[in-house]
């Protein structure tokens, strides 16, 4: 048999293996579909989703009016959201309750006066259960920036008091106040520029979405190793063992399986990637840098599948081991993502795990392209591939040849 027919036979066996391979390749589509309809709308606040907000300003002061005009105008220009002015509080609450807008933002008449006099002013933010998630993100964004705005006014107030102590005439201080708050508005309006972008409200964009997409991609491609595990196990533990295959042929089988496994994973990607693009217009960039990452990942998971498949005698144990590895890997990546205060050793282990590297390389390569991280993750994946492939080879040969 020439090497090519080795490969062709193996691909035929792996792909033709009942519904397992079919399930492995097409379940990602289902997952992505669900993800895009259920999770993505919640995660994509900031970019993509629009926040609609009703708005009532009862403060007739010029500065506040200008500020609010600017805010409203800028937001609409940005296309990040739609703001609808309402006539009174009751209407504002009603449109929220009816689900027409995500939130209602109310500025009382004493905002300017109050803050200028150093009093605490409460603005009201109404939202409904239906839009709670996006409304609350919007809220925390507005709250944090408005609080800086409030603190800024306080600072202007302090400067004014110091000036007053030094006998600076009242008109002069008033000029200082006005100028100060004017500047404050200006900087507030352009606050995005500080980090080199534009707009007023800049929540973290779609970072959570990217993270989730990367985890899903990794998980789906990992799932493909189950049919590899299963078939490899039944091959080495039953077929080859009983038929006394010569070593040279066994080596051929091993590499054929490694390659066909990687091809199966790649096929999953080939299905998953366009589906993800179509169903949720996820803005993937840097498609070229994703390619090496995908190929390397495919080989890592293929090697991993062969390793699990040949390390245990029984197919059940192999599958369980594979399931555990996946389950624990996902858990640990999530754990690391919320609490880095883990024990040093544990967090080190998670950081060097191929699963983590995979998640990171996808989120990185698809959306950001941070070269240092990319190189490090690729290195990690390559080392993981070498380790799993070597171990897998050793176990494969041992289990497959002992008759």
């Amino acid at each position, binding site marked *: 048999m020439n090497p090519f027919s080795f490969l062709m036979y193996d691909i035929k066996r792996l792909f033709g293996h009942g519904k397992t391979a079919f399930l492995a390749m097409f379940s990602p589509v289902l997952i992505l579909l669900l993800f895009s309809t259920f999770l993505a709308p919640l995660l994509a606040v900031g970019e993509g989703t629009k926040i609609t907000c009703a708005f009532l300003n009862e403060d007739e002061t010029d500065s506040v009016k200008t500020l609010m005009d600017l805010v409203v105008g800028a937001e609409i220009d940005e296309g990040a959201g739609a703001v609808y002015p309402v006539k009174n509080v009751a209407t504002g609450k009603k449109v929220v309750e009816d689900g027409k807008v995500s939130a209602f933002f109310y500025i009382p008449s004493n905002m300017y006066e109050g803050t200028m006099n150093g009093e605490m002013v409460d603005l009201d933010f109404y939202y409904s259960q239906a839009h709670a998630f996006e409304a609350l993100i919007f809220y925390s964004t507005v709250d944090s920036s408005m609080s800086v705005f409030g603190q800024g006014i*306080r600072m202007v107030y302090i400067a004014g008091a110091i000036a007053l102590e030094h006998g600076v005439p009242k008109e002069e201080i008033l000029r200082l106040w006005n100028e100060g708050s004017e500047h404050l508005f200006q900087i507030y309006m352009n606050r995005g520029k500080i980090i080199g972008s534009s707009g007023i409200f800049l*929540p*973290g964009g779609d970072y959570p979405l990217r993270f989730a997409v990367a985890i899903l991609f990794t998980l789906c491609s990992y799932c493909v190793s189950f049919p590899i595990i299963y078939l490899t196990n039944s091959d080495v533990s039953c077929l080859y063992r009983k038929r006394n295959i010569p070593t040279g042929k066994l080596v051929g089988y091993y590499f054929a399986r490694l390659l066909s496994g990687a091809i199966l994973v790649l096929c999953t990607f080939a299905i998953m990637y366009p589906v993800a693009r179509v169903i949720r217009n996820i803005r993937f960039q840097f498609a070229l840098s994703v390619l090496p990452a995908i190929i390397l990942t495919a080989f890592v998971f293929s090697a991993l599948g062969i390793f699990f498949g040949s390390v245990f005698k029984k197919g059940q*144990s192999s599958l369980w081991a594979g399931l555990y590895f996946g389950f624990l890997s996902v858990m640990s990546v999530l754990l690391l993502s919320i609490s880095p205060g883990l024990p040093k050793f544990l967090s080190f282990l998670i950081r060097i795990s191929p699963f*983590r590297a995979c998640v990171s390389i996808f*989120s990185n390569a698809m959306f950001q392209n941070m070269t240092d991280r990319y190189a490090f993750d690729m290195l990690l994946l390559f080392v993981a591939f070498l380790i799993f492939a070597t171990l897998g080879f050793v176990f494969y040969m041992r289990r497959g040849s002992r008759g």
Partner: protein
Amino acid sequence: MNYAAIFKGRARALIMDFSSLTVILIVIIACVYAAKTEDVKSTSELPVAVVNLDEGELGEKLVDILLAEDAYTFYLTTEEDGMKAIARSQAQGMVIIRPDFTKKIMAEDIDSLVDVTVMSDTYEFVNFTEFVINDATKVWLEMYGENQLRQFSDVDEKDIETFHEETTEVWNGDSLIHIVPHLLGENTDTEKEEEKSYSGIRWYAALSLFYLMLSGIWMCDYGSGHFLKRALGKNANIAFLFFVQSLPGLCITTIGMIPVLIAENTKQNPLLILIAYIIYVIGASGMALVFCSLAGKLSNLVLVAPVVSMAASLMSGLLCKLPDWAGFWEVASLIFPGRWFYRAAYGQPFLIGSILIAAGWFAAGLLVSWVLSVIKKK
């Protein structure tokens, strides 16, 4: 059939099945952890590298303000080490204060003062850029205030110092403007209730479906042509047989629910939630039967179990809140047992609906396995 013997045998097999038992143990630990931590998690320990390249003095000021933030763990480092930390995922983000930071602020310019890099390694960075912008704004404003003060001839260094001291207090203290959030459309009792996310019990419910499926390799038999035939030949009542066989799994998941429920400390009557949970798992085992008998063997089941349990819990709102589609899904999701458990957790009426849906899924499981066995026999 001797149902008592079946129950005993199945219970022993389940307790001796360490592979699946470990799954439920991990799940219980993780959910107790989730239930315990959700109230406390106001500050995050996520490390963010801060690199100060500023040639002036104001960069340090920003560093001080950032380091004082408790929303993230900011730490000062060099650009090289910061990059390394990001590459090795020891830091989730990096803030670089540009060399011309001071110069630009002095010139009242606000364009591109800092560079922000955030890796998408976590869900926690929703408001991250806000923090950096706000803190840079503070530095900018303080400098602006100082410059304004200096315009007055008799303001001396001491006054400037007082100004900075007081301003620092302001930055660390309350703002004058506070936005009060109000939740509309629910009465005030549930408003408080909604603040608790109940992620512990919700996720436990979601993951117990996963466990039921993984420990339910025996359910695959129901879809194989011969099992039901033999059981019927033995004059078995198939519904009761399935119930008895799944009873040990129901018991184990229910027992596992108790520590999670204690850790969660719900405002509802815990006993009521436990009842809702029991009804839920009965429905869930019907669901498990549907998919196990479709899967047919373990190699398929390990694929089907994660996908189905994720899908079902996502669609019923157990995994995370449901998005709003004009209320359509609020109604559509009611066909999932998980939705009714969700309702129970939030103190909404559930009893009759959940029993009906659980019974429906139970029947669906039997129906699917029966249809499958008829098809396979032919």
